[in-house]
């Protein structure tokens, strides 16, 4: 079968445009159109060019030299949220995400897409973890004081100077867990701005008897650079391979599905198969040196998490599923035993598997699209039962996007946005 798949015709793209794209990937689309109706930008615009099938066609036309480099191709590429819902819908298992990232990087290298100054600065900053954490110190302070510096910043009380790594050392020393040894990826923005979620993660893991460590030498997962089409992702991957590798852990965990997906791609590279694995339909769990890279909630689900007491009848949690968990990591959802353990009455939000429009940095780069995509998902909160009314998910960027629904007027009543791990927290602040 591998031979058959490999035998598909292929021509490489123009090397001048940046990294080479294996052309057999572009020809793997059979043009059936099953991706159209799951694509948020197709549903928004009704324009087939703004769908996965349309984009693949444009990219292939360019790669084959039948279409000159056209600003519209760059436009439709930039329009893509990168939610990867099309990968789940694709009967031919086209690795759309891989192709999309390559093309976006090509476009940035060739100057066809120019990320904004803030994005480039952030990209520069994420390569320097300690500088990043320092730079976000004022923002953490503002959050602690209850001043929310941006419409996407949800309330919380992050530690100002105590790092998650240090906190984990203290907490483990105090509680002496004896179970599985796990490493946690803390994430740049999560650590810089939403550190209280990392702290909650440590407490939940330790309560569930996990010997959690936060490797000091870790860095950005690279998701930001992939989203922005910036280069240099490989060196970030190398750094994390060194930080997490070497069979020291039973599992490598991430508490944000976007970072987790990027980490699993970079660490899992050794085991990731070539095009021959296209037909599997289910991605194998990525490994680093035989150690699994897995979402923290999925890991807790396997352990059987300690449950919180019932929170009563009135409170209600609506669960939204991050795209990079469901379509990226190909996990069927946030495990129900974990959600049951929160003690809340919960149900999946309507359209839980559809994208909320956050898309890493999409909500910053294409705010109008992002809000329009969010509108169809979030409007239900206006009439939903629950007091308090909580929207829970497992990705901090999705949390930011959901929180913005209040400022933009999509949701006209108060509601809380929480990470599921916060709902499991034995000592919520």
């Amino acid at each position, binding site marked *: *079968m591998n031979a*058959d*798949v490999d035998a*598909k*015709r292929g021509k490489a793209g123009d090397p001048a445009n940046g990294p080479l794209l294996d052309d057999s990937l572009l*020809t*793997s*689309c*059979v*043009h*059936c*159109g*099953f*991706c*159209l*109706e*799951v694509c948020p930008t*197709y549903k928004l615009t*009704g*324009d*087939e*060019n703004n*769908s996965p*099938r*349309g*984009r693949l*066609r*444009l990219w292939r*036309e360019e790669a084959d030299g039948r*279409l*000159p480099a*056209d*600003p*519209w*191709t760059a436009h*439709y590429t930039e329009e893509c949220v990168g939610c990867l819902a099309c990968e789940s*819908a*694709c*009967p*031919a*298992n086209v690795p759309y995400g891989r192709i999309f990232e390559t093309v976006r990087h090509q476009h940035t290298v060739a100057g066809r897409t120019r990320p904004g100054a803030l994005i480039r600065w952030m990209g520069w900053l994420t390569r320097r973890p300690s500088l990043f954490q320092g730079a976000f110190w004022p923002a953490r302070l503002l959050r602690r004081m209850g001043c929310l510096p941006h419409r996407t910043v949800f309330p919380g009380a992050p530690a100002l100077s105590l790092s998650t790594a240090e906190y984990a050392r203290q907490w483990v020393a105090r509680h002496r867990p004896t179970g599985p040894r796990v490493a946690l990826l803390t994430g740049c923005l999560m650590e810089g701005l939403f550190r209280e979620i990392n702290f909650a993660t440590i407490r939940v893991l330790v309560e569930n008897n996990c010997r959690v460590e936060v490797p000091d030498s870790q860095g950005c997962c690279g998701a930001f650079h992939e989203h922005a089409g910036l280069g240099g992702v490989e060196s970030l991957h190398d750094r994390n391979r060194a930080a997490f590798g070497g069979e020291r852990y039973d599992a490598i965990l991430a508490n944000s599905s976007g970072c987790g997906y990027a980490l699993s791609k970079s660490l899992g590279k050794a085991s990731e198969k070539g095009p021959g694995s*296209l*037909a*599997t*339909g289910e991605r194998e769990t990525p490994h680093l040196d035989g150690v699994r890279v897995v979402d923290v909630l999925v890991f807790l689900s396997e352990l059987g998490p300690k449950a919180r007491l019932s929170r009563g009848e009135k409170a209600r949690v609506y669960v939204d599923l991050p795209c990079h968990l469901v379509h990226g990591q190909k996990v069927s959802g946030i495990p129900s035993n974990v959600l049951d353990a929160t003690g809340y009455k919960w149900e999946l939000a309507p359209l839980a598997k559809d994208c909320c429009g956050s898309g890493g940095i999409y909500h910053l780069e294409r705010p109008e699209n992002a809000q329009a995509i969010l509108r169809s998902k979030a409007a239900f909160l206006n009439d939903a039962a629950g007091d308090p009314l909580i929207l829970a998910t497992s990705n901090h960027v999705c949390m930011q996007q959901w929180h913005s629904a209040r400022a933009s007027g999509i949701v006209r009543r108060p509601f809380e946005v929480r990470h599921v791990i916060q709902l499991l927290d034995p000592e919520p602040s």
Partner: protein
Amino acid sequence: MTAPAQLAGYDADGIGYKTFRPDAVVIPGSVEELIRVLQRARELNVPLCMRGAGTSLAGGPVAAQGGVIVHTSALRAVRTIDANGQWCEVESGVVLNQLDEALKPHGVFYPPDPSSGPVCTLGGNIAMNAGGAHCFRYGVTSNYVLGVEVVLLDGTVHRFGGPAGGRGTWREDWKRLMVGSEGTLGAFTRFWLRTLPRPEKVWTFRATYADLITAERAIHRLVAHSSFPVAIELMDPRCVAMVENSPMAVGLPRDSFMLLTEIDGPPELVDARVESVAAILREAGSQDVVFSDEEEQRKKLWKARKVAGGLMGQLSADFVVQDAVIPKRALAELLQLVYDEADAAGLAAVNVFHAGDGNLHPNFMFDSQKPGDLEKVEHIGKRLMQRVVEVGGTLSGEHGIGNDKSAYMPLVFGPEMTRLQMAVPGIFNPQHQLNPLKVFQQRRFVGSGGSGSEDQLNSPTSAKVTAARYENGSKPGSVSSGTRLFEHFLDPIDGVLCVPASACAVDVGRAIGEYPLRFPLWMDERATLHEHVLASGFAPASSRFGPFCDNIVGMNWRLPSGRIVRLGERVVKTTTGYDLFRFALAGGTRWGQPIDYVIRLRPDCGPAGVYRLHGSHGAVSDAVRAILRSCWMHWYDSIDVLTRTGLASEAELRIATNFPATESAVAERRLERLAVDHGLALQVDSESVPPCDGLPDLMLKITPDRVLELAREIANEFACRTVALCYPGVVHIHSDDSDSKQLQSIVTRYESQLREYGGDWQSRHRGAGEPSERESLWISQLEQAMRTV
């Protein structure tokens, strides 16, 4: 949109390797904008092609001659769902599964289910007369379209039919020509579609067979069985091996045929049928029969079937799928032809298809970039289609012709029949500005400066030449139009019978002989098939089996010119050319006279059970509503309410069944409960022939939720006997008044109400009304074309 990179996304449909770049793409935001687009295109003299989701497998929604693609993605509102009236109104860009999601809370569904359901639009479905796995029992799109709103090239908007599914304000049933017209007549904007109560429970069965003979035995027995399977799907060993050699393997024996079948209905009934279906599958020779009513397990049983299409895409650069429908007796021969031709050409071919209908889907895998591959595939297609037509089949069952299969059309339509077919676009789109080069190759747009279809037909590159080429290559006389008339025959495997249109019930019974088959519509013993079609077009059992035009599939027809031609097919589903067959059938004798009908037979499962429930009109109305909301389709042949002269406050609800004795007991219990719940008196008759109400004097067609009130009112005020056919929404009026004054006053009284809902009336005593000026023009154009044949 006109930038090159905005057009590239629109240059192909589901056949990705054939590209036709449009000059512009327009996405109208509303019907008003769509109208302006059409008007402007006419002024600018550019070809137009309507496009939904672009999932066609026949080259339907592509700009074959350049011009403008009109994408209907913004017209996607489900406007009305009327669960009591069993209809819904949707815009043409509504996605099939989106409609299903909207219908679900109302407890109803729209049965056609092409596998592109998650993305394909209703516009495309109606343009191509889509089918799907479950159309074996439920029927194809044309059986469910009640009305079509269409914008013609001049920007005028017309509504053919409506919620009641009749002719509406027109003399002729123009919607028949619209369904399956592949976007060549006008731009669809809205549809009124018929719905059914959602099946309450489904059982799925999977069996494997070592050879085709045993698999066919199972298929033939299932088709004729009282359990009425809703789908019968077959995968050949090459397809099974492809799945089993992939990571999607489900553990089937690699050299086997895999058969899937499904039954649905109310729990107590389907549960009672499970063992008999499993027994059929085993007795036919399968040691490996698995079945389940559990959602997850059922999905697993379907898995091999569902992943097959995607796997082909992964294994091969390109693949092409054919869509021929054949008489099932020719299955072995045609499969062998597929294998022989593919092997000789060195291409992989797998078959996965709708075996119940005889709808083949041979898939040929190839590489369009490899020199010679495309030619090989096209050669095989021609050889295959030639044989398909020779054995009595047709080119397409559900995908349509597009520009991918138009080269085969001369196999089916000789020069004269082509001219008759071309008369249809000749009325609405004579310059072929809409979707040129589709369906018929000679449909080339030459612009308003050039001349229209007539010249095209007579040009050297016309159909005549193409047809002659095919005819030379085939057996003498086997495919020319003159010799394609139906002969009288009975095919007990497919359940089709060709009899004179003047046949009565007894003639049909005699022709069927000892086979356990029946013509399901109730007939008056003295009246002929043709008289029934003229009197009403419906019969009591139309509740379950639809009108006569859904139970007649083809006919030999004498045109007004005296020439006898064949209309329709002898197979049960087709999307091959314009549906002149149903159009002519609905037109009574205005378009000619039927000589012979090919009628569709159904399994005869035992004596008819007739249940009569008596009570007040109100109680009966309530009971009918309760039944129509339940999953009655596989239980009751007919659900009728009879009102007698002078007794309009009393009514009789008559329910007829055709079950084996074991199932009658289940039905009886259910009806006893219904009688108790609604305070009705139940009386049970078992009769070998269903009762007959006689030939109606007048038929009125309205929506199902209004039919009882209408029937009661007429019985009351005009003192005549009425029979309301509850699900079709038909009132049959039997008048003692031999002069037709009474009928005239009924028609006068109700005509506008019927028209408002897109209904109509029909009477064997009275001709249709005068057509409007515009319709007269269309009619005269078609008449003129018919005279030349």
